[in-house]
């Protein structure tokens, strides 16, 4: 089969590899009909996440048709059309039964590696480095899906691929970012980053009752999408001196009640702190540039909540713990427990509460995956979201 493989930093290639096989009896094999490139794939592409191997198949946002099932699979049959959550979860461990699917205790065969770096291991993830298990990803013609009875969601017959595809990651991730804010009526929310996850976080904040949502980015086309599609009030951080001051102006000096970091470790900014981060990252002293997170913490109102859904892979420097403690802030974070949100968000799509297809700007065949990565990574051609089809 054909698969998009990581062949080194900024080097994606679509190559021929063997077809996947059932390895565990609870697996199924899915023929991928639609798959997408995620912003977090770009961190792998740009080589900011450790433990990649030449030849790793990428991709954790995918959907398709079941073509084979293992002996123990009960709920799926060959021919079912499914969308698959990016975290791999067993469904029976204490984490899964506590609704913490992205912390599954059984699904990461390289748990020992993750434990060394993180203290405890999170769940395995498709196509997302060996730290999360070395699972072959879904930017391929076929993919092996473990725990077929637990993760995959059957897609209703009338629903198009593009409407359901983002249930695999970015829609639930953005939604969880807003949900972690515990938004009360009348509250204001600020979202850093207007990539697809940021846009879904903005939309979700409105779905969950926010009165106003502010969005911070530097690309015109992304700010325009945030305004036009999700109704955010936008701030181009390259055009203002100090984002927290602008947010104070907008909120009578209080600051937004809740803030969401949908940027993560490759944040951009200006000023000496950005240079400091950039130099240290280049020297591999600490890999994460937490500019957006620091700014979010400084901006949020006293007693507010900081919700982090951006990806962080290493350590963060100059973390404003003084602001967190003295102003009584709450920090909430997490890889999305996608399984939790599949059914409710599918219903929201069916009910017309949200049409997630608005983020798509590029549709390419799988064979052109490398070009898709390049477009997305370099923000060329107003690229917001690339969907690859078989």
């Amino acid at each position, binding site marked *: 089969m054909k698969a998009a493989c990581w062949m080194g930093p900024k080097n994606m290639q679509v190559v021929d590899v*063997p077809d996947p096989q059932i390895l565990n009896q*609870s697996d199924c094999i899915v023929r991928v009909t639609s798959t997408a490139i995620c912003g977090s794939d770009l961190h792998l592409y740009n080589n900011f996440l450790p433990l990649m*191997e030449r030849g790793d198949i990428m991709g954790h946002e995918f959907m398709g048709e079941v073509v084979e099932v293992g002996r123990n699979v009960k709920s799926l049959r060959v021919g079912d059309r499914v969308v698959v959550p990016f975290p791999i979860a067993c469904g029976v461990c204490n984490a899964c039964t506590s609704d913490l699917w992205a912390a599954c205790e059984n699904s990461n065969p390289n748990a020992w590696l993750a434990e060394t770096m993180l203290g405890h291991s999170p769940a*395995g993830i498709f196509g997302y480095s060996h730290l999360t298990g070395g699972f072959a990803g879904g930017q391929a013609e076929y993919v092996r899906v473990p725990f077929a009875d637990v993760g995959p969601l059957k897609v209703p017959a009338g629903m198009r691929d593009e409407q359901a595809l983002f249930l695999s990651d970015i829609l639930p991730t953005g939604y969880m970012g807003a949900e972690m804010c515990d938004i009360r009526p009348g509250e204001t929310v600020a979202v850093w980053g207007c990539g697809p996850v940021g846009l879904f976080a903005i939309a979700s904040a409105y779905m969950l009752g926010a009165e106003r949502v502010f969005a911070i980015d530097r690309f015109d086309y992304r700010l325009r999408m945030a305004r036009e599609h999700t109704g955010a009030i936008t701030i181009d951080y390259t055009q203002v001196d100090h984002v927290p001051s602008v947010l104070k102006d907008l909120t009578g000096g209080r600051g937004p009640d809740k803030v969401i970091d949908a940027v993560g470790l490759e944040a951009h900014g200006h000023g000496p702190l950005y240079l400091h981060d950039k130099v240290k990252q280049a020297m591999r002293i600490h890999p994460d540039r937490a500019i957006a997170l620091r700014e979010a913490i400084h901006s949020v109102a006293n007693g507010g909540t900081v919700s982090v859904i951006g990806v962080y892979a290493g350590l963060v420097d100059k973390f404003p713990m003084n602001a967190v403690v003295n102003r009584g802030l709450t920090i909430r974070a997490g890889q999305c427990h996608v399984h939790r949100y599949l059914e409710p968000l599918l219903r929201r799509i069916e009910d017309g509460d949200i049409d997630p297809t608005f983020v798509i700007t590029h549709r390419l065949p799988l064979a052109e995956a490398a070009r898709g990565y390049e477009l997305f990574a370099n923000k060329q051609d107003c690229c917001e979201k690339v969907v690859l089809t078989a």
Partner: protein
Amino acid sequence: MGSSFTLDYPVTERSAPEQAPTAGTALAPELRPRTPLAHDDQRIADARRGTGGETLADFLGFFSIGLGLAETLAPGAVARMIGVDPQSDRVRNTLRLMGMREITSGLGILSKQQPATWVWSRVAGDALDLGLLATALTNKENKRGRTMFGIASVLGVTALDVMNARQLARQEETPSHEARDHGMIEQRRAITIARPVAEVYGFWRNFEQLPQFMRHLERVTMLDERRSHWVAKAPAGASIEWDAETTEDIPNERISWASLPGSQVHNAGTVEFREAPRGMGTEVRVRIEYKPPFGKLGAKVAKLFREEPGAQIHDDLRHLKQVLELGEIVLSDATKQRGMHPAQPNTEPVER
């Protein structure tokens, strides 16, 4: 390889008798911790207790080896540094000897066997160094400034050595430390399994099932109620065999075993089972000790290649959890064989 080590100390730490509910006296009686559990936890916490000097000892061990290598391999450079004649054969040979002494102390400290004694050996070495440097001061040809600097440096390290040796000497006589002083390596790991205690205990109780989740074991055969025969994989396709005896078996609580005297590899283990809070199943706590075939340094080298048995224990426990919770061990394309493989399908068979 045949180790003549015999078991001359208790393998298991017996739990102390239950105490009257005296812990937490600042609290109202109904708010105090349930005594038996709290007592058990204190025992577990104390089992890991060292002296607090272990990190410094490691540093001094590596420092010894580094300095020793410099003295042995580049005596001229070291001689210049301390202001003595780098051309003199007598100086160079003395430095080489001192270097070998440093390396011996360093390896001794890192072996963790009677570490306090080895750190005291460094103190003795420091005294010798100071004596030699003082003698060097009397020779007018030497650069005294540099020699004085050398003396100051040694005095500084001596202070650290004395402090560390005294700290390490406070080590209590626990079975763990005694085992370590006998050259044993001890590993402790714990995991929570979402199955009832009786099931987890019952699974482990049948030693013949251990190879299902212990990757380095080929098979275990019960010879009778107490004795069992173990076959383990060794590097390069070889295998190691030994007989073991079940030394303790308290249903749903604890199983202990130890290899019989005369075994190729001495090893012993204890597994304890305890009901996890909030209905989360069973806490499994394993303590395994073994005498590494090539000594502790061999074990350190093996650790680099992740072949040290201790490093396997946690993977083994995770596999036990998967076998009991899921019925099989979870695989990925990259991990179905040992070593590094890209995360893409391959046609090779699964390697256990």
